């Protein structure tokens, strides 16, 4: 079942740089997709368009029935509630504990405390950090901080998880641990789209790979590897 449909997308920034050009893409429910390419190839722009941080200059993006390009600023939250987003720099609140960082994503909607607690603990269990719930992010390793960010992104039970270079700041072993977590989340039915430079991970995971080059879709393999795409 098609969950994301991208048609003829173009993104040109105000400084004249064209980040994406005539991109067509279809992503099914439950897919795990790597978006790879050199710096400036348009990977991060694609992720930004998907969670409507940026608007496309041209084209159409349909996510779960929502026309993202036409979505008014005041209605963007409706899309974001269906998505989870994970970044390279984690984006955690240092003054809040691990538990509070994850619960934050539920509390702002006014959910009852009992429900917040159950869902938060469940998400922390999934990323293997239940025992560190009371610690502050600054006391955690990079990998652990990224797990907290993942827990926060999935605590609402989103249909899609967007990851923008989530392993960019992590060593290979830690990165692999993160990928294991993402694989579990994917197996539970969440569609994952991950922009990455990490050749080792892409090769190990053997998932669908989309290669971008200067904003254009160059290759799309069902079970690709990084080397395979480049050479």
């Amino acid at each position: 079942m098609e969950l994301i449909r991208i048609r003829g997308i173009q993104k040109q920034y105000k400084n004249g740089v064209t980040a994406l050009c005539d991109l067509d893409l279809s992503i099914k429910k439950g897919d795990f997709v790597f978006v790879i390419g050199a710096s400036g190839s348009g990977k991060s722009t694609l992720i930004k368009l998907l969670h409507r941080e940026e608007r496309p200059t041209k084209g159409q993006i349909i996510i779960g029935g929502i026309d993202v390009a036409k979505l008014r600023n005041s209605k963007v939250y409706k899309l974001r509630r269906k998505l989870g987003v994970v970044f390279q720099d984690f984006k955690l609140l240092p003054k809040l504990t691990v538990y509070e960082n994850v619960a934050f994503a539920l509390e702002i909607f006014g959910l009852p405390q009992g429900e917040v607690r159950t869902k938060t603990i469940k998400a922390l269990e999934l990323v293997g950090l239940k025992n560190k719930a009371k610690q502050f992010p600054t006391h955690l390793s990079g990998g652990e901080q990224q797990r907290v960010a993942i827990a926060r992104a999935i605590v609402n039970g989103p249909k899609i998880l967007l990851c923008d270079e989530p392993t960019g700041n992590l060593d290979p072993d830690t990165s692999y641990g993160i990928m294991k977590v993402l694989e579990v989340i994917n197996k539970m039915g969440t569609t994952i789209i991950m922009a990455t430079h990490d050749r080792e991970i892409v090769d190990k995971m053997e998932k669908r790979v989309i290669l971008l080059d200067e904003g254009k879709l160059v290759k799309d393999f069902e079970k690709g590897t990084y080397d395979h795409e480049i050479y």
Partner: protein
Amino acid sequence: MKFIRMIGRDIRDAIKSVFRNFSLSMASISCITITLLLVSLAIVSSYNVDNFTKLISRDFTIVVFVNQDITEEELTEVEYNIKENSNVSEYKFQSKEDIAASMMETSDTFKNIMGQWDETENPLKDTFLIKVKNIEEITETAIVIEKLDNVSLVRYGEGIVENFLSVFKIIEKVLVAIVILFIFVTAFLISNTIKLTIFSRRREIEIMRLVGASNFNIELPFIVEGLFIGMFGAIIPIILTIYGYIALFTQFDGQLFSPFVRLVQPNPFVYIVSLIILSIGIIVGMFGSLSAVRKHLKI
């Protein structure tokens, strides 16, 4: 229920934020305290000036002197015309004998001189003492009465009334202008504090947006914070208004400079002013904050 939970969380977070950014909050609360204190002072003064005007209006009297050789019929006609005047609220007749008698009571000198007068020698004139409904039309009323037959002289403190009224009116207008100006100053100060809070919490806002918070979800905590800053800023002005005014009233025995200028009774006056100050703090706090959030988050 969901909304109440959200409000509850925002109240908790707003109080936390006020204390977390203590120096910033204190700076803002102090400025608001000063402006609200001035607002309170302006309201108290304005209300008292209004009260003075009313008291003066009540105290001012038109004194109508009739001709000395007036007959009973003519006097009745003058009285009828006064009674029929639309601006006359009440009047009192004083015969020249009554006036002489009351003057003799005030001093022995008067008693010695006036005591020797017989009915025909009394040089005083019969008078009507008139209170008016609208003090601003006292001059017009006096002119109308002065034109009546057999009226020899009309006195109502010409010039003084007009001066009093115009001075009080100017004072009142200036005070109202000050109140409005300070309300804007308060809104500006709160708006600035919230701008700084937004800056210090921009990461939190970014994450809120990321996890799907609506504009309302984002605005609400800042509105609540503005409300608290306004409320905390109103505490000292309220205390000073209540205790300061009561102390002033007691110290001067309820009158300022002369018995003519009486102060408004503290109860319930100070509590009404306090409520106004609190409301200004809260409402201006909320709207100052909302405008800052809308402007800076481009909502």
